[in-house]
């Protein structure tokens, strides 16, 4: 079991560190490391002898990702800590830089215990959510693990410029929006969480339609999304959160395939004045690959009006193939975070100045559009 986890990493290396690192994180359960470290080390000492054959691979591997900090090395094992300690020590992260090999039985036992401790907390309601309904534990342990295979294996997302996201404090990430279904937002959330050295959580701003739909609204709230309005965005930035917004809205996500990678109007630029009020930097983000997942060749407007949704997409496969047609095309994605645009140099009344708003909005828009073109030129093919 443990072998199966470790060995493929080495083989995967040709795909590049970007795709590889998250693979390791997944087995980690990023929360509950630390605590039981000492015990784990002791147990592992035995394990390492047995697993001697695997050792060189692990060492080489650690060298390959050394630049990302030795911290990451602990994570594959970190999840497998003994049961009792797990329950008590859950949240403190004292990470050490030792590499370890998973031990079959002990590892499994710890994972089971961890799962049960998690189950117990969930079933007794002993967990916390914030004012927006964001359930950090559920997001980290369950929802992210469900999104991660899509992110890594299906869309094979490549992330660039993650260093442009500050390590702390509020920042507004502004991205292009495309793909008929808002998968790009979710992928951006995984990208930020898995690649940022601080594992920051992205709080997305979503359309009101999201909060009208049953089930969708519940999941969105638990993933930390909230309604795209100035009040919520301002409040999150004030709390020092990383906020993600896609100002194109339905105009961007529901545009026909022929207009792919042409940025639509950026609303009224409300996001700029919100960022300005909080003095938060704006980070332009360009997402390539999402446009092609559902090539929208038509729009059944009447049907959309009847259903009360902004557009009803007709793609080469949907709705002709039924649910099968709703499977997105496996395109290769690139997400690039650009240079931050600082906003804290402006006087407080600047947020009311419409000319400045339009200028800044255009600046952000231009930067995203240019990066999009650049990435498109570099792209080898849509699918690889």
């Amino acid at each position, binding site marked *: 079991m443990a072998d199966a986890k470790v060995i493929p990493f080495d083989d995967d290396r040709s795909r590049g560190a970007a795709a590889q690192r998250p693979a390791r994180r997944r087995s980690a359960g990023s929360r509950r490391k630390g605590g039981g470290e000492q015990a784990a080390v002791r147990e592992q000492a035995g394990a390492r002898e047995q697993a001697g054959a695997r050792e060189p691979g692990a060492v080489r591997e650690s060298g390959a990702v050394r630049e990302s900090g030795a911290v990451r090395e602990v994570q594959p094992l970190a999840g497998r800590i003994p049961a009792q300690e797990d329950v008590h020590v859950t949240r403190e992260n004292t990470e050490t830089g030792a590499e370890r090999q998973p031990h079959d039985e002990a590892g499994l036992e710890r994972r089971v215990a961890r799962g049960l401790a998690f189950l117990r907390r969930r*079933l*007794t*309601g002993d967990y916390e959510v914030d004012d*927006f*309904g964001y359930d950090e534990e559920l997001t980290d342990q*369950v929802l992210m693990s469900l999104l991660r295979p899509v992110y890594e294996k299906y869309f094979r997302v490549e992330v660039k410029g993650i260093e442009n996201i500050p390590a702390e404090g509020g920042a507004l990430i502004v991205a292009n929006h495309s793909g008929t279904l808002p998968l790009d937002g979710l992928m951006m959330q995984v990208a930020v969480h898995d690649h940022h050295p601080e594992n920051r959580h992205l709080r997305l701003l979503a359309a009101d339609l999201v909060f009208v739909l*049953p089930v969708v*609204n519940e999941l969105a709230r638990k993933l930390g999304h909230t309604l795209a309005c100035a009040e919520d965005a301002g*409040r999150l930035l004030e709390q020092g959160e990383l906020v993600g917004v896609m100002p194109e809205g339905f105009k961007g996500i529901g545009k026909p395939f022929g207009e792919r990678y042409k940025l639509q109007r950026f609303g009224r630029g409300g996001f700029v004045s919100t960022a300005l009020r909080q003095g938060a930097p704006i980070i332009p983000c360009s997402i390539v690959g999402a446009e092609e997942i559902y090539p929208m060749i038509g729009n059944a407007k009447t049907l959309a009006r009847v259903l009360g949704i902004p557009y009803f997409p007709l793609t080469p496969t949907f709705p002709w193939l039924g649910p099968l047609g709703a499977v997105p095309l496996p395109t290769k994605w690139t997400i690039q975070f650009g240079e931050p645009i600082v906003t804290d140099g402006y006087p407080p009344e600047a947020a009311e100045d419409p000319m400045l708003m339009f200028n800044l909005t255009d600046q952000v828009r231009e930067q995203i559009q240019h990066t999009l073109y650049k990435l498109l030129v570099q792209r080898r093919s849509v699918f690889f």
Partner: protein
Amino acid sequence: MLVTGVARQLGGRFVRRIQRDPEVDRVVAVDAVPPEHHLGGADFIQTDIRQPSIARVLAESGADTVVHMDVTGTPLGSGSRASVKETNVIGTMQLLGACQKSPNVKRLVIKSSTNVYGSAPKDPAVFTETTPPKSLPSGGFAKDTVEVEGYVRGFARRRPDVAVCVLRFANILGPTADTPLVSYFSLPVLPTVLGYDPRLQFVHEDDVIDVLRIAAHEPARGTLNSGTFNIAGDGVLLLSQCSRRLGRPTVPLLLPAVTWAGSLVRTLGMSDFSPEQIRLLTHGRVVDTVQMRETLGFRPKYTTAQTFADFVRAQAPGLLPPGAVAAAVDRIAALPALHGGHTVPKDPTRTATKSSPKTPSQSAN
């Protein structure tokens, strides 16, 4: 000091408590029906605030502070919804009219509710005192509070010399509270709306009494107690968390079914499960309490979670007490098979872990 709505538990408690404060000389307690609890030496005057006689009572008492607590969602004893609405709206109008004529009144405290914000998916996640509601409440208690606050604003304009304090309370919970939400949480099985997990905020009874005292007295140094304030405990609980902590299983129903069942129950007169109650349990509501802390200078003793824990202690145990659930999980953890290191027991655990948080009900065990 004149206090209305003393026949209710909360009003009675407030009257008993406020008399111990040194600033208070005399308390005149008013309600349409005599209270079943004692009022600790306050003068009880039985009068219906819907009648003009309240003006005479106010003039005779010479009160300088009026605390209006008779804005409620549930009828006392066997009242109908119509009479509750009349007491809320007409009663407030009469009382405000009486206050306007009385030269003695210096301070007016109104017990309102965060219901004024309504609950809609298009609202911001957190309401501040100035957030305009996207959809005004269409009826029921929520509409009453909106109208009451409208009349109070009119009064504040006409009598700028009176300090008016409107306290918008989140859902009041506690061992003795009697609100529609309390009766909802006492159901053996909680019907919920499928696909929605509302965020709820609670405020403890004890904190309600304390904040009413702050509002009824002279403001402390550096604080201001006239204006509109949201009052709620810190933090948020999801309805699914509430049901798990309470140990009562949930039955998710489709929204139309819940609305239909609610109106059926209302028609049969079994309970007042109003549409706005259903909206609250669908979309939830969270208010911002920065004004309460910084302007009013009030820090609640109980957080939302502590309030709920205190409420749970006073309730009979549910069908799935959290302790029993936890013990069951511990028993699974203690199974010898799990420590043998076989792969067999791992699978059910993992699948249960994956599926349980997504289902609002406690079906995993």
